[in-house]
């Protein structure tokens, strides 16, 4: 079984900076694309593009697609597709909207805006989303109907069950507790954001140290200490820059005044407050972190990737791939419900067209982020970067006055170019023919 011809992977005496830092080249490429978009629009808009206000808006607008893209990575990695996520979002949003405004208040005889009702609605909505996904997963996993067909059907079905759920009417949502999940109505403020930023930085550094210790315990090669320190520095720097930037976005004085009046107080002269981190963005970050851990550090994630690499081998390894399929789609459904919560809170209403065409953006985000439609390959951070790149492009084009049709043309072209570049890159590296 020896194969002397293929053993040369030893350490070259001189390695490039990127190799030493062990940065994923694909991640680097996406970051550079993102940076390029940012630089171009910053110059074009005379700096407004990177202003705290616009950064805040882009971050908030990215959240629903970003949340769903995390689930879509798992779905696509497992060699499936989910075309129904936009409709599932709408359906979950309808259940959430009707639940909090009509169903539960009628059932318990309370008025709209009761926190307990909202909490119950959220639980019901998330459960409903999970069940919708599980049904898809059962049809795909156990009944062997191709996921393309099941979810294409789901796209039509859920969009229109949604219509019947609300009788085709928009539902206005005003509960301040709900609106907290949206954007400007739910922010931490500067101090709390800084505290959270510092805690997150501390956790990131601790994570790097713990991973290094584990490798050393088994006698594996580790990066030089300066390389680890540099990575830690970059991560901490990025976290604090983001927090600091959003903490420079002031809440409009008129709104502050209104808030004080609502509490029966008078706003002190010269009082100011900053937005800081929006709760919706924290939800996206939490989802991304949890999903990354699931992908890399749990058997569930490992099996999803194994199934994408070789479904038969995964079966033969004694893994129940049918049940796994149900779990993957159930998770996707759960994330659609979570995205629905954020989307309706930001729009402050549930409309029939909520989440319309979102499935395409979600799939595009995952694919721009390096998820291979053939399965087996994909990262959570890539999908979120993909969503961020698309949102930045749209936001930037809207700011400089590009017409909507042309915006969509650009996004479509970017999708194709991103995959094209990836194919060329893989060819050059000899990863595929």
């Amino acid at each position: 079984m020896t194969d002397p011809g293929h053993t040369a992977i030893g350490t070259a005496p001189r390695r490039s900076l990127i190799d030493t830092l062990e940065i994923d080249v694909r991640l680097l490429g996406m970051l550079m694309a993102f940076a390029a978009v940012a630089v171009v629009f910053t110059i074009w808009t005379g700096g407004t593009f990177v202003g705290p206000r616009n950064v805040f808006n882009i971050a908030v607008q990215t959240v629903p697609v970003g949340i769903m893209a995390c689930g879509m990575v798992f779905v696509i990695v497992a060699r499936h597709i989910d075309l129904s996520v936009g409709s599932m979002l709408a359906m979950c949003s309808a259940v959430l909207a009707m639940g909090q405004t009509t169903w539960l208040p009628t059932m318990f005889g309370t008025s709209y805006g009761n926190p307990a009702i909202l909490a119950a609605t959220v639980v019901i909505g998330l459960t409903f989303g999970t069940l919708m996904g599980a049904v898809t997963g059962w049809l795909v996993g156990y009944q062997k109907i191709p996921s393309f067909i099941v979810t294409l059907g789901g796209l039509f079905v859920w969009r229109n069950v949604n219509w019947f759920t609300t009788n085709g009417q928009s539902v206005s949502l005003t509960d301040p507790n709900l609106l907290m999940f949206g954007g400007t109505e739910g922010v931490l403020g500067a101090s709390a954001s800084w505290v959270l930023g510092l805690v997150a930085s501390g956790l990131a550094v601790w994570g790097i140290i713990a991973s290094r210790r584990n490798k050393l315990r088994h006698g594996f090669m580790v990066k030089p200490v300066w390389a680890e320190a540099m990575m830690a520095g970059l991560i901490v720097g990025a976290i604090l820059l983001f927090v600091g930037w959003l903490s420079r976005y002031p809440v409009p004085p008129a709104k502050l005044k209104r808030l004080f009046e609502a509490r029966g107080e008078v706003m002190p002269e010269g009082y100011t407050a900053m937005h800081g981190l929006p709760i919706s963005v924290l939800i996206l970050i939490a989802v991304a972190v949890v999903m990354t851990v699931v992908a890399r550090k749990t058997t569930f994630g490992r099996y999803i990737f194994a199934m994408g690499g070789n479904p038969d081998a995964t079966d033969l390894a004694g893994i129940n791939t049918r049940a796994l399929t149900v779990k993957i789609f159930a998770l996707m459904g759960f994330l659609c419900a979570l995205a629905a919560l954020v989307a309706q809170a930001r729009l402050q209403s549930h409309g029939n067209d909520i989440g319309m065409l979102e499935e395409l953006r979600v799939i595009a985000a995952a694919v721009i982020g390096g998820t291979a439609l053939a399965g087996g390959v994909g990262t959570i951070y890539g999908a979120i970067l993909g969503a961020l790149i698309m949102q930045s492009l749209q936001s930037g084009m809207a700011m400089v006055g590009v017409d909507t049709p042309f915006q969509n043309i650009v996004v479509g072209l970017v999708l194709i170019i991103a995959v094209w570049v990836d194919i060329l890159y893989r060819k050059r590296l000899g990863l595929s023919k």
Partner: protein
Amino acid sequence: MINRTVNRTGTPLVEMRDISISFGGIKAVDHVSIDLYPGEVVGLLGHNGAGKSTLIKCLSGAYQKDAGHILINGQEVEISNPRDARAQNIETIYQTLALADNLDAASNLFLGREIKRNGIVDDAKMEAEARKIMGRLNPNFRKFNVPVSALSGGQRQSVAIARAVYFNAKILIMDEPTAALGPHETQMVAELIQELKAQGLGIFLIEHDIHNVMKLCDRASVMKNGQLVGTVNVNEVTDDDILGMIIMGKQPAKAA
């Protein structure tokens, strides 16, 4: 030549009695009985489509038999999926190797049986264990941090073998283990088979190459059209006898 003094007085390690399985009316395996003793290598021979792989997949849990009994150490067992087979210390090296190409060697080795620490998979520990076993099987193996798609045929084979050997198999199924290998690697597999045999494992070897059968197997069971032609002691027959069984379905003059 290998030691062919297998003690067949006790209980067989594996007994497959009267196994039948059909696919859409076609009897792929038709009332076939074979057995295997500890420290023995039994070759399974026959044309493509003779039913040998199908028969053996009933033992590895990939297929479910329609009728018949499987006994391990004299105890009847029910094997309805690969997990059941693994629980009986039955390990299989498939012809396709059954590796997830996008995962590295350690992830493949432990697929379905990951080492965990506090509920999360312990990659460092698994890689350390993979390095240990590969150090024994294929000391030149170095590519622990790349997907197995980047490995050569021989290296992939050694990952598949390591997976079967690592978990203390008592019964090993090898489906044409040397089909894709060069002469040197084939020799390594032959040596490994003899080492495992000496440790008291029972091995079912699906093999097309008569030369390998004569060299490696104690007994040979020949199948044709889903039925068992017969089982012979390899040292009592010639390779022409076995070829006759495979091609004509004819028992040799002096069958075991």
